[in-house]
Each structure stands twice: as C-alpha cells, then as structure tokens.
C-alpha cells in the first residue's frame, strides 16, 4: 500500500492562505471603491462643520477627520468577514485539502492581513482627499489626526480586525451545531432587548472613538476571543451545503 500523505494543519493553513489571499482580493478593491466614493461625497462637507458668529465676525469651518473613513472600513471588515463564511466561499474550500478548522484559521489570517492593508488604503484615501481639498478649496478647515501615529495606526488596525473577527464569528455561528445557533440567537435577542429597554446603556460610538493604546489592546483581545470562538465553532461544524 502506498504510504499515506501526512500534512500538518500548519502546512494546509499556509497553502489555504496563499490561495485565499489571491482569490478574495475583490473584497479589497471593493474597499478602495467604497472609500473613494465616500471621500468624494464628503469632499465638500467634511465629517462635521461648525459655525460661529459674533457681531461682525463670522467664522465657518469644516472639520475633516479620519472618523468617516474608519467607520467605512469597520463596516467593510464586518461585511467581508461574513461574506467569507457564505456558501460559495465554503464550497470552494472543499475542493482542496481542508477542514472547517483549517479554513477558518486561514480566514482569520486573511482577515488580519486584509485589516492591515485596509488601514493603508484608508490612510491613503484620507490623505488624497486632504490633498485635493487643500488645492481646490479656499475655505478654512480643521484636520483631525493629520499625523498617522503608530498608536493611531494600531487603533485603526485593531478596530477593523475586531469587526472582521465579529463578522467571522457571526457567519460561523449560523453554520454551527444547533446549540451554538440557539445560543447566538438568544444572545442577539438579549442584546436587542437591552437596547430597547435602555438605549443609553451602550455607547458604541464613544467606545469606538477612544484612540488610545489601551483601547487597541482591548479591541485586539476581544478580536482574539472572537477568532478563537469562530475556530472552535468551525471545529464542531458540519459542512452545510445549503
């Protein structure tokens, strides 16, 4: 008898990442398009404006900040991660050596790499927008986060990564065993219930907007937990072809 092939999980994941990174590239181009469209839409208005008038003095300025771009990237990461768990993508995994576990680990790696790339895309569209504004407009404006500090970079990366992780977890939940599905639905219903009872108890925007190093670490930890949960669920999941 021919000897059996013995490939480690690591080797398989590496190979899967290698191919997925090429095959999922369209999600990155969709981010570029998204960022450009929004950059153009907010070209004139910025993400906020302030007017201040006192007697003869009238001051009007527009604030340009990274917030809008970050919002967009986070939203994109969440949706992309969910898309990676959809049927078409899962079916493609079955045509090569893979298990649900290896595929989810590979997706985790892809989401992390793409989050990193997303930060660069985000930063460049943001600077391009600023460049265009400074050349074409003659209005006073305020730029928030002009300098992309390592902490800011880390913060952007961690939050995009976090939402990617949540997306992956969310997508995986609905392919998992029944008890995980029921647990997820219970959790979602519970969250909705809380939001209805006291909408002020969760201040998501405030949480996202905290740009400090500690927050990044916090986001990354939650992302790591979400990734691990997603992989754990995948390890228990059957292939569902519906």
């Amino acid at each position, binding site marked *: 008898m021919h000897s059996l092939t013995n490939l480690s999980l690591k080797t398989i994941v590496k190979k899967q990442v290698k191919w997925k990174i090429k*095959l999922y590239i*369209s999600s990155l181009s969709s981010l570029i398009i998204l960022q450009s469209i929004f950059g153009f839409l907010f070209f004139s208005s910025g993400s906020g404006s302030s007017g201040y008038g006192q007697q003869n003095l009238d001051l009007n300025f527009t604030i340009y900040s990274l917030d809008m771009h970050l919002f967009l990237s986070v939203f994109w990461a969440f949706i992309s991660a969910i898309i990676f768990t959809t049927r078409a993508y899962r079916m493609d995994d079955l045509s090569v050596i893979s298990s649900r576990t290896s595929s989810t680990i590979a997706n985790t790696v892809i989401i992390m790499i793409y989050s990193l790339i997303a930060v660069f895309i985000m930063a460049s569209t943001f600077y391009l927008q600023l460049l265009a504004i400074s050349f074409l407009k003659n209005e006073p404006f305020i730029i928030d986060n002009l300098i992309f500090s390592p902490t800011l970079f880390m913060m952007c990366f961690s939050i995009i990564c976090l939402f990617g992780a949540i997306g992956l977890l969310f997508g995986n939940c609905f392919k998992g065993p029944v008890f995980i599905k029921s647990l997820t639905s219970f959790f979602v219903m519970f969250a909705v219930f809380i939001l209805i009872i006291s909408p002020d108890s969760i201040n998501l925007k405030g949480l996202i907007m905290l740009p400090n190093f500690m927050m990044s670490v916090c986001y990354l930890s939650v992302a790591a937990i979400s990734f691990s949960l997603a992989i754990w669920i995948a390890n228990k999941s059957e292939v569902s072809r519906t």
Partner: protein
Amino acid sequence: MNIIKCEELAKNYANHNALHNLTCAIESEKIIGIIGRNGAGKSTFLNILAGYIKPTSGSCSVFNKNPFNNIFTAANTILIDDRLSFSDYLTLEEILTMGADFYPNWQGELAYRLLDYVGLPLTSKHQQLSKGQMATFNLIYGLVSRCALTILDEPMNGMDEAIRTDFYRAILKEYIAFPRTFLIASHHLAEMESILEEILLIDDGSVLAHAPVEDFKQQLIVLNGPSDVLATLLADKVIYAQKDMAGMTLAVVEASSLVISEDLLRTNGITKSPLTSSDVCMYLTRKKGRDIDAFFD
C-alpha cells in the same frame, strides 16, 4: 487491511433518518460500487466518510481515524460530486495549479492530457462549463489527485455515453497505475460493473448486501418452470418476484435457499438462469408488495 470501518452508523435529520445501523468494512485498494435507490443514504454515507458531516450515533473510522473535520483523513481523501466548486476567478489551468499545490501525488501532466483529450480549453472558467463538461473536469480533478481514498458520487452525471465509456477505462487505468480505494456511487451499475471488485448495496439507510460482484449477482436466480411444480418447490421460500403465464411460472428466489440438484431441476422441466447485477439490486431493494402495475389497474 481495512481502510474504512463503520459500526452502527446513524444519521438523523429533523424530518428523516438518512442512515440507521449502517455497518461495513472496506478493504484498501479496491474499486467498490456504492449502489442504492434514490434517497437510500448513499450520499450521507459518503459525506460522513469524507468528514463533512458527523454521524448522530455509531462509529466511523477512515485510515483508523475519525474522519470528522480531520486534516489527516482530509489529506488522503477526495470527494467528487456535482457540487464541487471552484472560485470564479480561476481558469481551469489555475485550478490544476492549485490542485498540484495541495495534493502531493498530483499528476499534472495526466490532467493536461485528459483535458486535451476531452477538448476542454485550459482558459475556460469552471462555472461556464456545461453540466457534462463540469462532471468531466471534476472527475479528472479527482483522478489526478491520486488520493488513497477517492470517493466519486455520481461522477458521470450529464456526461455523454462515449465519454462515460472512456472514463470508466480511465478510472481502471489510473487504479492499475496507482492502486487506491475507489468508492463509486452510481445509478448506472450495468455500465461500470466490469471495473468493480465489490458491490455495496445500501437501502433504507443500512447495508443490504456487500459482496464481490460475481457473488452479489449470484445471490438471486430466476427459475422458470411449470407452475404446479414450482409452487410446491417454493412453498416456504422467499420469492422476490413472480410472473405466471399459461401454466408456466417465472420466479426470482435466493440462490442459497435452493438446495436442490441441477439434475432434479432439469428432470422437472425447470430452468435456472442468472440475473444481471442491476436486476439483483432492483429485486433486493423493491419494497414488498409494491408493484407499479397496481397503480394502473
């Protein structure tokens, strides 16, 4: 050596039980036909072997390991069916490159030659292939991956007859060149029978028969003789099918239940004839007391 061992395998879904008490052992390096009616549980069984789904109860081992979500068994198993899909961004050539990257025993040259033979251009996309072409490509993909356990679920669906004949031969030649275990589920038993070593008949979620092709065939026989003589001879036997015509009776019975010498049969004017494997499958799996004629009377 057994490569597959299943004990009392059961798989229950919300509204039906796909498998119950399926027990079987499959030796390595054989070509085995997995036969059964629609909905008998063939695909469920094959999906369990491929590690795609988890049995509700019972045990299943492939290469002495539980195949469910197992990367070792996954690396040595390939399941080819009509749901096999590849990314829209890949051409056939790129798919082959990807296969070569994953499967250590990959036969790239053979893949190119076979694609050329069936006239599939390397630049086409998988999604754009016709049903028959897609089945052909999938089968080629499965053959050249040379996995120790190659599972083909209805591999010839949609392929025209000429290609089917060619590819049964291709399977046989690949098997001789690189012996491995082939499980082929198909409704076309007659056309693939000659390349099979064993037949595993699944009915109603469990194994109804598992034997070398010839033994499988010979388990049922047709007796043809005077009605009165046959009636007494078969009084306490299980009769799978019976047809009476002008004092003569045709009856399908189990060969082992018939302990009577050839000479005695002959002197009584009874002739014994064999059945084709397809017929044996049909009679074995036919639900008792159901006859399509009854619905038209």
